[in-house]
């Protein structure tokens, strides 16, 4: 299984990695229990920053597509196929669209929504 990254593509590099690993799981090119390369190996092979690959792996782990087994390495999650079908980004966009639609329906302006969004995000960080 080969990963191909387009460094000039519009999609962020970590996102390209996440998508390709998910597609590989869905097309059964990689299967539950298969080992993945270490962050350092993949980053060096693709000539990327370690942090980019680490971010992709973190997101895949959050989505239960991969699982890290301590020093033994990173493996494809047993439920990876089912979990790869779930598109969290699409879900976020749908939820936000519904909320914004409701807010606009109540007469809230765009700038008020933006300000409120920033405030809520900042509060979440703190």
């Amino acid at each position, binding site marked *: *299984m*080969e*990963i*191909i*990254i*387009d*460094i*000039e*593509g519009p999609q962020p590099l970590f996102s390209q990695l996440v998508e390709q*690993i998910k597609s*590989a799981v869905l097309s059964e090119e*990689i299967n539950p229990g298969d*080992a*993945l*390369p*270490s962050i*350092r*190996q*993949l980053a*060096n*092979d*693709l*000539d*990327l920053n370690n942090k980019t690959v680490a971010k992709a792996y973190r997101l895949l782990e959050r989505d239960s597509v991969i699982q890290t087994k301590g020093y033994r*390495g990173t493996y494809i999650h047993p439920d990876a196929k089912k979990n790869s079908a779930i598109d969290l980004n699409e879900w976020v966009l749908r939820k936000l669209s519904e909320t914004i639609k409701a807010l606009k329906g109540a007469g809230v302006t765009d700038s008020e929504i933006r300000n409120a969004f920033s405030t809520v995000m900042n509060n979440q960080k703190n």
Partner: protein
Amino acid sequence: MSVIEILFYTAFLSQIFLLSFYFPRKIQNRMTQVMTDYPPAEYPRLYPKPIDYYSNSHRAYRIINQVIFIIGLMILSALFVWDYMSDGLVSPMIPWAYFMVQMMPLLYLELSEFSCFKQMRKADLPTTRKAELIPRHLFDVVSPTLFTGAVLAYIAAIIFVLYINNFAFYWGSKALLTILIFTAGNLFFAGIIFWNLYGKKLDPYQTGKDRIKLMKVTVKSLIYVSIGVSIFITITQAINRYDMDILEPLMMSLFLQFISLASIGERLQTLRIEEFDLEVYKNDAANQKP
């Protein structure tokens, strides 16, 4: 002239011939073969520097080796004519120091290669990069038996050093110093192996398969060298212990030839240019980093 003297002179002559004539000629033939079979016009990415640079490098490599070959013969003649061997004046450092000089042309080639890879990466403007989604482990590139053999040889050599030194293992003792130097050498090999397995790819065009091929040969050579070092340490300790110092220069020369055969020889023997995918260096190759 004693048998040991004859053996030393033969071994030293063999060292001169092997490292300053045989290997350089093989390497040079290979460089010429690359330039003939994969010409710059068809494979421009293989030559990131002006073509003159390569012909000059090849010429310099040949001349330096010829000079070193002549120096070697002069050293051998001097040792022979003035009969230094029977006076016990031949230090094992002579074959060692000469070996270091013999390695200089290779170092020059390695540095030139690094500089070419650097140039390749600078000139390279690919938009896509590829990598295999398969983890690499030590035993993917070397057999567990060979690796275990190297570890056992290392342990055996340490036990032997301690035994020869009556287990006198304290700060400043000869045994400790030998073990420290020996271990540092092995750690250095381990570092190179790790860098080969997980480090950055120097050649931006090299395919994954070719990279693994090179890795296998490099790691195998290093393991052979490590075993060679363990055997050499064991033999030299025994030589010192039983006052057979006259054997030291002979052993040193044989050891240096062994590590050269295990590294340079193994590389030349195993890696064939035709087995590498050099199509990636063509200009019409896809604008991709393999």
